[in-house]
């Protein structure tokens, strides 16, 4: 929903007038002094609740401020920026909440990773009332409306979060089709939303919930998919989980010519071989460094002592975008080479495809 101030053209004019009075700042810079959520410059949210899901996972219920749109599609993710020791750190998490209906809040479910210092902080360190920065919902791991008649959901670990949003939304709309959910976690205590899923499966006659505890039963082998769901070849599949699982699944579906029916969400950056590298200049007349084809422009700039903005470092949040003055870059995810003068490039996932200059 548009913030109050932009709902009508009269209010829009008022805002323009306000800008004239506060230049070079924006009216939001002053309004945020009264209430930190009253600004659209950087989207903000207030953490309302931190709900423990398992011993190392928690759901953060966040009330977004002005400029937030609640009409995300279930399955999408958002960026969250948290200040730790003076510095902003960004990560992306799937929304586990249902669009529009859950009041004026959104929720994400975060699992603390052993090496993940931000996820650890989010699960165990975040006080309700904390103001965080937010990035708008993105991602194409979504289910069409109406959903296909038969669905299969293959989930490992924290990959349940986008699926949870999908299931809750379909349930709320009463459009949950014939669906099979195969969900692997290490053990019972490690399985998020276990009780809610059980309850949902009992209530919704078309939903089959197949939990798997890998400490006892071992990993689900892809060749044994028939055991979980005998008619998987007839179903549209949504899969989210650890990268090896998704790789195996993608191979399997491709071998059987079913890749068009597989929808995958990856939380790790899958990269190509990169570009050929080159001489990169940071700002016209700025520091110039030789960069190989595997080092991102962001990493190279930081090594050269340039202070560059960054966010998720995986190509999602666009915090790191800078205009390209000249040259071309390669997108590490797709392998595509691109770059027109003045075009914004994401420095965290771009490598030099020959000599190039960034406008800083």
């Amino acid at each position, binding site marked *: 929903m548009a913030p109050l101030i932009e709902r009508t053209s009269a209010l829009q004019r008022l805002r323009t007038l306000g800008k004239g*009075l506060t230049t*070079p700042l924006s009216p939001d810079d002053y309004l945020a*002094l009264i209430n930190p959520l009253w600004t659209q410059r950087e989207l903000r949210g207030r953490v309302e609740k931190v709900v423990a899901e398992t011993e190392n996972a928690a759901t953060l219920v966040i009330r977004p401020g002005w400029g937030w749109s609640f009409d995300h599609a279930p399955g999408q993710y958002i960026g969250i920026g948290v200040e730790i020791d*003076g510095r902003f750190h960004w990560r992306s998490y799937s929304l586990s909440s249902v669009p529009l209906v859950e009041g004026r809040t959104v929720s994400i479910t975060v699992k603390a990773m052993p090496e993940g210092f931000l996820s650890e902080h989010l699960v165990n360190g975040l006080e309700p009332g904390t103001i965080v920065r937010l990035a708008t919902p993105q991602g194409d791991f979504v289910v069409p409306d109406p959903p296909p008649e038969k669905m299969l959901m293959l989930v490992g670990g924290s990959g349940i979060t986008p699926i949870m949003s999908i299931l809750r939304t379909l349930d709320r709309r009463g459009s949950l089709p014939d669906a099979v959910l195969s969900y692997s976690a290490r053990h019972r205590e490690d399985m998020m939303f276990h009780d809610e899923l059980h309850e949902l499966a009992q209530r919704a006659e078309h939903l089959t919930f197949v939990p798997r505890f890998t400490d006892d039963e071992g990993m689900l082998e892809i060749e044994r998919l028939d055991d979980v769901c005998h008619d998987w070849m007839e179903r549209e599949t949504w899969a989210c989980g650890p990268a090896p699982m998704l790789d195996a699944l993608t191979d399997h579906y491709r071998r059987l010519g079913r890749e068009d029916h597989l929808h995958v969400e990856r939380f790790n950056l899958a990269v190509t071989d990169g570009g050929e590298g080159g001489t990169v200049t940071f*700002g016209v*007349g*700025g520091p110039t460094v030789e960069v190989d084809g595997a080092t991102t422009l962001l990493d190279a700039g930081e090594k*050269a002592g340039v*202070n560059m903005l960054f966010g998720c470092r995986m190509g999602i949040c666009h*915090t790191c975008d800078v205009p390209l003055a000249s040259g071309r870059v390669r997108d590490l995810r797709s392998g595509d080479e691109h770059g027109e003068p003045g075009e914004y490039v994401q420095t965290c996932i771009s490598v030099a495809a020959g000599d190039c200059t960034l406008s800083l």
Partner: protein
Amino acid sequence: MAFSDVREYTHLTDEEIEAIGRELDEIRAEVEASRGQADRDYVTRVITLQRRLAAAGRITLFASFFPPAWLLGTAMLGSAKILENMEIGHNTMHGQWDWMNDPEIHSSNWEWDTTQPAEQWKHSHNYIHHQFTNVLGHDNDIGYGILRMSRDQKWTPYNLGQPVYNALLALFFEWGVALHDLDIEAIRKGQKDPKLLKKQLKQIGDKVGKQAFKDYLMYPALSGPSFFHTLSANVTANIMRNVWSYMIIFCGHFPDGAVHFTEEELEDETRAEWYLRQMLGSANFEGGTLLHLMSGQLGYQIEHHLFPDLPSNRYAEIAVKVKDICRRYDIPYTTGPLHKQYGQTLRTIMKLSLPNRRTEDNPAPIAPRERRRLRDDERPTRRSELGKWSRAATA
């Protein structure tokens, strides 16, 4: 003339200069590693204070027909503008707060409450002035192309008017700064790229328009019957800011003891020698916490020139270490109370309005030369700590 000929350095060996450089690098590394919550809290506190002060000043001025309100509102608005330009804008655009990874306080998109567009300032100040500090013919901050500030600059009868130009520069400082990056001298000599000139003029026009509209039309109009009172208050607040920032800036490089250099010293200059040039070319002044806050910590001009991108709230602690280095290596560390530093600056301005032969107490100058100023692409590679600037859109 080579770097080793600079009188103040002749006692230092190359090894000693490199050792000083290493010590300064260590200070930088220590501060960089220890930046954290306390520093963020400092800058956000100053920003909040400044915005409240500005808002309170503007609101008070709606009643500016009432003389005490005029006085109070003007004082608050003027102080807010000083804080915004000195401690917040100047330092943010140097990249001092970029480490926070916060787009709302970042050198790449900060715009300040004055007539010069941020992008042009980042070029003329961050890059040109900080890289070529006090090098005649390179550093346009020496007299801002208006005043003769060094005996090595050629005297012309025009300089007789210096006392007057100086007073005008102080009053209208923001306008002088607005035109600074245009490089009037290059335009006069026909060396300016017309495309770049056009782009810069448009940028300045846009900025000036917004600033003037706000201060000289919108707020006066909003205060209705107080129109002219508010207008005069806003003009006064801008002049307050202009005179103050002019004075602080002139005290940074022109008191006795701050050295000017010639371009020969730039040749093969090492990082350590660059550090030395910053130390010898800058001057500090002493004062309390409030004075340092209102001057954007530029009372620590020496420390600022050594580490232009380290957070300003750390300069006081850095100064203790820098002073110690200067003492151990017998390098002058120019400082004094503000009135003394400005008094010396003023004396130099007056004195240099006359030809060198009329002022007998200084050593013979190097023969003044007219040099073509280098284009950016002809200049040595810049140092990364000098922050970002961009002219990409004209490329």
